């Protein structure tokens, strides 16, 4: 953990309709880092993301982004500050073309550089370029995931949260997806990677947090977690 946090979450409590899901979560990510949040289905990973991104009202705790308190801000204002999430299940606009989806990625931020950024993301995801005029709903699952990430990049994120980008992809595509994420991080992007895919995520991430039942159970450098007996037993069946 470095001295200056890009995102700093403290004692975050959250849930749905008064029913708590997160019972006090702490984590940090520094600029330039790639950090994984791991945990099985229902652990509360998406709840964490969505509360950090302002989709719900927190029960308690603080969220600081780039030194600024963002708890209670609208999702729109949070995107404007450069905290961008690519959600679980892609959530692309099925009735809009690939190009329109990308353009809306810069609805709130990065608008001035829209054309330039569009060229850039198409260079990263050439398949999207071939499908520019096609409705996003007609893309394959893998292509939709790429579009969702590309749409996120259009907002010139300072921190990109990826919620289960490998979900529902074939093993080959999962491989490709992790390669892409590695490349984006290599280009200097700070990434919070939320995954159930423990082995590959620990290969990619510098540090990781392991969530269970709305709490962080383990955290540390990825290399150390790979050797952690508790983690190996719980997630790798060893």
């Amino acid at each position: 953990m470095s001295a200056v946090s890009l995102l700093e979450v403290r004692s975050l409590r959250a849930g749905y309709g008064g029913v708590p899901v997160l019972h006090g979560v702490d984590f940090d990510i520094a600029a330039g880092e790639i950090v994984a949040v791991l945990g099985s289905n229902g652990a509360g990973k998406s709840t964490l993301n969505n509360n950090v991104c302002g989709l719900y009202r927190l029960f308690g705790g603080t969220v600081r982004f780039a030194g600024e308190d963002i708890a209670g801000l609208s999702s729109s204002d949070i995107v404007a500050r450069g905290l961008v999430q690519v959600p679980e299940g892609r959530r692309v606009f099925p009735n809009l073309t690939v190009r329109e989806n990308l353009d809306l990625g810069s609805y709130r931020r990065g608008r001035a550089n829209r054309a330039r950024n569009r060229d850039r993301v198409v260079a990263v995801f050439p398949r999207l370029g071939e499908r520019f005029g096609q409705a996003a709903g007609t893309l394959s699952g893998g292509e939709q995931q790429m579009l969702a990430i590309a749409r996120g990049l259009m907002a010139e994120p300072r921190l990109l949260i990826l919620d289960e980008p490998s979900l529902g992809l074939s093993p080959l595509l999962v491989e490709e997806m992790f390669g892409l994420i590695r490349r984006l991080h290599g280009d200097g992007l700070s990434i919070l990677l939320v995954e159930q895919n423990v082995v590959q995520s620990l290969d990619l991430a510098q540090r990781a947090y392991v969530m269970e039942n709305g709490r962080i159970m383990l955290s540390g450098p990825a290399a150390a977690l790979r050797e952690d007996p508790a983690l190996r037993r719980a997630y790798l069946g060893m």
Partner: protein
Amino acid sequence: MLDPVILLPAAINGLTMGAVYALVALGLTLIYGVLHIINFAHGSLLMVGLYGAFFLYQAGGIDPYLSLVLLVPALFGLGYILQWGVIGRASHGSDQNVLLVTLGVSIVIENLALYFFTGDTRTIEAPYAFEMVDIAVARVPLPRLVAFGAALAIAALLWLLMAKTDLGRAIRAVAKERQGARLVGIDVDHIFAMSFGIGTACVGAAAALLLPMFYVSPHVGHVFVLVAFTVVVLGGMGSFIGALLGGLIIGVTESLGGLIFGETFGQLAIFLIFIAILLFRPTGFFGGRPS
């Protein structure tokens, strides 16, 4: 009686009225397509627009075609505030609630109109009201021709707005994927209110175009809202092109039906169509497609 010399003028007249129906229906279908609510207040808002145009003419001496530039922003604002402040707040995300809320809003608006303006039917006498224009074999009243051209022009502008601007893209995005919209930083409540506002601005424009050839009374909205519902069902709920073509088809049907079966049966023909579509093609002609 079915001589083309009679039928063609009737069809052309029907087209002109159909363009106004299309304009009212476009507003309705936009609101439905984005908010997934059936806006029962749509007709009452048209009535508000008609009174607006009426008093601007009577008290201010402002020609209805000129008052269009005032009524469009005024009704936009009214629609925005109505959705933002009343309908959105009272609905709590439940579709049945919204239905009742829009019905309630329409009852309130109509009774306010009854209270302030009485139930009298009013008309204006614009100097050009009875001017006729020759088109091919037909003589068309000038106001109808203006309404036709303006309604189509407004429909084209609306299409441009929806297809080519970030606002239009955001409106279409919110219609299908609200969570995704929030995550790119779209303020969904604002887009809801914008959609309602634009839908209401359509009846503002329709009101200005109608007044020179129609009347205004507190219940005048009923005439149009039933037709507009038919148009929207015919064209497919939420479909723009469907509303436009549906409006024209209904206008011609009404006109020809009136000619063949007598004046009062023109409207009957519309509702026969309405029932037939619900029976045989409930998604309408353009329904189920991405708009």
